[in-house]
């Protein structure tokens, strides 16, 4: 365990691991593409159109007939939607690869059989269609979100560098950027279904990383004990605060994921990834990255102090000699 912790203090190793994850996610995405969720993917739909009376009074019966036919032909729909207006629709959404010709014919027959028993069913139409999205998530939205995170990193750097120390600012900026990048990389690598909500998780990951880093920097700054750099940095990590925040938010997200429906579950998973990435960066990467910077800073500060003794003292020393 100690060896593991020692390795986790090695910023080069951590950087290499993150670079590998990033490279893998790029390769996997380049080969297989982004795994978009059903709501933002191309799809095949089966639409059952009915009038308002049937929609208000027979919707459950219509649904039952449709789902019985799907079961009979062993086809699985991704989700269904109900739409209403002058005409009402029950739309079943299928994966793009699902062939619906047989399903449509079978369902039309089932509706015709029902119509023979009950005239209300005569006004029900069954149609199928393929839908090809023009854009799943607009590139402009993603680019603007990425620019926002980058600007946040710059602003965080300026504030922390001015208020604390230059290298603390550098570490904060790196943490903010890395958290967003790594969250996106893991979501893509793990093939978690992506919706526009995944973008929120990436952005909030940067915010969380900023919280965790500032908490730690604040502790390092207020730690007045004379300790070696490594001890000072590692004893000042805001472990308790980060742990409480991560645990509470994590439990909340698990709860949301457990209670809610599947797309919300994927959003909860994306958010959980963003939380864990930010926590790991706050607990492991930030101290590991800041330590060499602090050592360098201390060294240059020390050199400045010891190397110059002042012109007057020099003259005095000479005259004494």
């Amino acid at each position: 365990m100690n060896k593991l912790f020692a390795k986790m203090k090695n910023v080069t190793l951590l950087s290499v691991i993150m670079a590998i994850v990033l490279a893998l996610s790029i390769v996997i995405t380049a080969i297989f593409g982004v795994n978009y969720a059903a709501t933002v993917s191309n799809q095949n739909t089966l639409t059952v159109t009915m009038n308002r009376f049937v929609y208000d009074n027979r919707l459950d019966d219509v649904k039952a007939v449709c789902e019985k036919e799907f079961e009979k032909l062993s086809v699985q729909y991704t989700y269904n939607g109900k739409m209403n207006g002058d005409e009402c629709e029950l739309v079943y959404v299928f994966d793009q690869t699902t062939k619906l010709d047989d399903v449509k014919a079978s369902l039309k027959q089932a509706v015709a059989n029902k119509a023979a028993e009950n005239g209300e069913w005569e006004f029900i139409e069954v149609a199928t269609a393929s839908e090809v999205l023009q854009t799943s998530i607009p590139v402009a939205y993603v680019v603007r979100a990425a620019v926002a995170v980058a600007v946040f990193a710059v602003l965080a750097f300026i504030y922390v560098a001015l208020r604390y120390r230059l290298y603390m600012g550098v570490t904060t900026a790196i943490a903010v950027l890395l958290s967003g990048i790594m969250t996106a990389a893991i979501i893509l690598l793990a093939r978690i279904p992506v919706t526009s909500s995944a973008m929120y998780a990436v952005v909030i990951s940067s915010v969380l990383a900023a919280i965790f880093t500032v908490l730690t920097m604040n502790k390092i700054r207020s730690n007045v004990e004379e300790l070696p750099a490594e001890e000072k940095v590692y004893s000042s990590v805001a472990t308790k605060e980060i742990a409480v925040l991560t645990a509470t938010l994590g439990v909340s997200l698990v709860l949301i994921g457990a209670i809610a429906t599947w797309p919300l579950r994927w959003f909860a998973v994306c958010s959980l990834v963003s939380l864990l990435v930010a926590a790991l960066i706050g607990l492991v990467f930030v101290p590991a990255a800041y330590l060499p910077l602090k050592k360098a800073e201390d060294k240059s500060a020390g050199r400045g102090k010891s190397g110059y003794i002042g012109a007057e003292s020099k003259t005095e020393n000479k005259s004494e000699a």
Partner: protein
Amino acid sequence: MGKKKSVVLMVLLTIVIVVLTALTVFPAFPIPGTVQKWNPVVLQYDLGADLGGGYYAYYYPEGVVSETEYNDNLAVLVGEEKTEYEESYVRVDGSTLYFSVDEKLGVTDGEALTQEFKDEFNAAAKEIAARFEAKGYSDYRVAVVEGYALRVELPASEPSDKASAAFSLLANTGELTLTKGGEKIDPADYVDGEAEISDLIANVSIGSRYSTSYLKIEWTRAGKAMIDEVKGSLSASTEANGGDSSSLTTLDVQVGDELLAQICSDNIMDNGEVRVNPVDGYNADYLKTFEILIDSALQTGGFDVTFTADSVRRFEPVYGANVLTLLYIALAIVLVAVLVLPAVKMGRFGVVSAYSSLSYLIVVAMCFAFITSGTLEITLGSVLIFLVGLVLLNVVQYSIYNAIKAEFNLGKTVESSVKGGYKKKLWGVIDLYAVLLLGSLAMLIGTAGVHTLALQALIVVVTCAFINLLWARAINFTYLSASKNKYKYFRFVREDDDDE
């Protein structure tokens, strides 16, 4: 503060918080004896598509009908009319749509789709998708149905009138024209050689002055010459008879048949710039739709294919109608945990945290619901940022408690520990919220859902900072003053109690 005063304040504070919490979360119910219904704040949100569903409409190019419409039309026809109708449409390329064989429409050559129609449709579909993207909806969907129709979805957070305007205007593929008194202005009259409307109009944008927004049209040199020439013959808007603008001579800006702006002489500034269609802040969204449409028509010059939208329909959240209820149940459990756990861990200081959490809930829930309708739509990102704020607020309270405890362990009195603890944490908390505030401001650069998230993050950060730095401290001061046993208040134990 005297004990009596503190107790009175405590009671008043409790009553206010309970009442406001009830206003915020008490479940909906019909008010007896009336037709009205009680609706808590949390049920008055503009929900995004993932939580509240939305609107959608199909667009069919002229000469293309859906299978359902074809069957419906066919069902009411008989004899020769039926045969004629059947012969006037064909199905091609494996599509379930029906395409007109009418040569004038140019959709098919009688058997297959013409290349011109295919190219025009694809270009127009791309442009329409770009227009909806430019509107910056948090969630929208433009899909090509069966190769040659469009289906567009917009989130329910968009008010229905604005959604209808967007549906009808953004799929208008007509040409941008300027007409004066019913006569089309020919750009070639002002430019040498071949000329287009973009040789006259340089730029269209939205300007604002005080609380009024307007459409700003800037002209090229040739455009300025045109506007100088026509200005004298235009009516002033004040000349309208009883508000009837049809009696005026105006310079009309049209895309296809859609009249987007009527320029009167007093809409033209001295530098030739036109300021037209003044509206209040709420309606500025319409101007955005106009701006996008004019700009797009200016760039593309319009398309030969025209779309007909069928009626706008409403769809339930794709994640299921009960998704919001389930989400509220999960959030209620989290809230209860956040109220109870601090009290267990930190004694009555934990109760202060619980009051702070409730205050946060009230302020954030109300701000999310009532600030700028149509801007602060609730998405899953809003739920996440709300949770982050709620937990952060309590973590900061916990760290303040630990700082007070550390001071106490140095041997200080409770009062001086509280003072010392808050003092020690003050700048740390300010720094934390300052960085988060900068983060929220930076996120405003994002578009659509991220922009909305940034506004919500601003509300969350300011609320948390206010509560942690001032409000919770004030509540703590009041409660501590009323407390008989200050050790018990914080769950502090000191062996040499006699010193106190």
